């Protein structure tokens, strides 16, 4: 089962990217796939496949990997299976910043507003959870929930103040949207760097599952492990939010799905979650733009439709 899961993910990653290249509102027959892949496609085909779809598919894969990695790290850090990348109020802070920029355009792009909002929110939550040089998981959880509630209220107020013409863009951003996303080398770099750091932290994260005291008795530098894991999770989430808005369920569900395949130790769990998250979001985005083409569904809503039954099935399997 364990090897099967690894093989499935290693094959699934390029397969889903291929599917994303050749699916969409413009149909491309299979006999044209090889000429396009080998660089002999028509200008129109090259434009559609390489400029539009490849860039978006890579963006989707990167965002999925970032969110799944962040979810796995947060679940380890908080020792809570319900932890997800947005628990620190990052998505709420980013949403407030972004919507405020859409509502009152002062020359600041929504992405910059989202960055400032996410950073402020994470700073407040982490400052509250910081106790005697270590992070208190319960404080982190409660401060994150409080921040998420507060920012949700501000988002509601901003939506109420918005003009009808602005509402559609705002709602798509809130639900998560990859339609305007392009592959970002910086995000890919963040994904690789955070993934590598996480693998180095894996043993410490395994020991932290037994609590900070036991982890320290096993020689783990608890505070360093916690802070590095938190930094990786925050940066990965912020990157994902900037590219695609707030996409739910990937960070929550994917690490659990990987655990179901028998990979509990973080040195396997985290890299496999990156692959699984990338595959899941790439498939969901491909479905979102292909199912009712040329109309496009918000990928966040589609993920929620898929994620809720998966999460409920996971809950039923627990004990």
């Amino acid at each position, binding site marked *: 089962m364990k090897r099967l899961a690894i093989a499935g993910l290693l094959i699934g990653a390029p397969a889903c990217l291929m599917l994303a290249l050749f699916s969409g509102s413009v149909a491309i027959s299979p006999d044209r796939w090889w000429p396009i892949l080998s660089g002999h496609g028509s200008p129109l085909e090259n434009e559609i496949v390489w400029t539009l779809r490849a860039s978006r598919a890579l963006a989707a894969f990167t965002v999925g990997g970032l969110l799944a990695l962040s979810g796995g790290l947060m679940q380890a850090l908080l020792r809570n299976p319900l932890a997800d990348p947005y628990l620190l109020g990052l998505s709420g802070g980013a949403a407030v910043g972004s919507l405020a920029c859409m509502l009152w355009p002062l020359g600041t792009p929504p992405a910059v507003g989202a960055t400032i909002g996410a950073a402020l929110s994470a700073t407040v939550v982490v400052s509250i959870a910081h106790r005697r040089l270590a992070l208190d998981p319960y404080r982190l959880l409660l401060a994150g929930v409080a921040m998420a509630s507060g920012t949700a209220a501000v988002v509601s107020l901003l939506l109420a103040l918005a003009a009808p013409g602005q509402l559609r863009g705002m709602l798509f951003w809130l639900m998560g949207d990859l339609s305007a996303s392009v592959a970002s080398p910086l995000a890919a770099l963040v994904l690789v760097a955070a993934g590598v750091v996480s693998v180095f932290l894996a043993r410490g994260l395994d020991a932290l599952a037994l*609590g900070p005291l*036991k982890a*320290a008795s*096993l020689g783990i530098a608890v505070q360093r492990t916690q802070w590095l894991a938190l930094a990786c999770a925050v940066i990965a989430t912020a990157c994902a939010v900037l590219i695609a808005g707030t996409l739910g369920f990937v960070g929550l569900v994917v690490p659990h799905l990987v655990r179901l395949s028998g990979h509990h130790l973080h040195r396997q769990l985290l890299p496999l979650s990156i692959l699984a998250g990338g595959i899941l979001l790439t498939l969901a985005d491909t479905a979102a733009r292909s199912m009712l083409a040329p109309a496009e569904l918000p990928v966040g809503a589609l993920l929620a439709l898929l994620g809720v039954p998966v999460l409920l099935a996971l809950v039923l399997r627990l*004990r």
Partner: protein
Amino acid sequence: MLQTRALSIRVANRTLVAGLDWSMAAGQCWALLGRNGSGKTLLLQTLAGLRPAAAGDVLLTGRAIQHWPAIERARAVALLTQVEPVDYWGSVADHVALGCLPQTEAGGRGATPGARRTPGFSGASDDGLLRRPEVVARALRCLHLGALAGRPWHGLSGGERQRTRIAQCLAQQALVQLWDEPLNHLDPAYQQLTLDLAQRMAAEGRTVVLSVHDPAAARRYCTHALLLYDSKHFTLGPVAEVLDETSLRNLYPLDPPEFPDPPPATPNPAL
């Protein structure tokens, strides 16, 4: 091996231990006895170097324990904690293998440099270095957990979890073993097995400290005992000298019990 000099432990403005001078040599098995809340757990955590002392020192082979690098300290001292989170997602074998972390963290490749063959629990390869899978397998067998190795840890009973925690301490291969209430949740057979193991580890040359509530077990399995009466009063020494009727009466005074009010003699007709 392990020594305290004028050690004081305080928590929330309350002094639990004051001025404790205690020397634990290799080959000794100590029983730590005291009433609930007397500071046994905090004393063990302080001995393990995981908690700062309010005053005084803990010395491990003559060097203050807070000056030991964390990984070196973990190779030398294993602590069985009383409470751990219940949501560990890995298997029983994964849980026990975490005990090998201090040995593998810097040594790498699953080998435990410097850990030489000792009789009893330790597993050894031809060159005398301990290999991780062997160490885990041996620790599992010692606690009769071999058949449960692949089972998810969260599905175990309380007693099975306690045996897994003890097996993890064995896998840590430390020369000082500090076990906080190791008999919790164990049935009488496994209590005896655990105490036998502790006794044998001490006989092999390790220093073992057990926090227990059973004076009879302490008398039978331990060589020495420390009795914590209150923050300033304690007795320590060989079991035969320390654990007598008088000291136990002083340690566990029998206060007149108070019971809840008895039920009414006649049932309430309204019910």
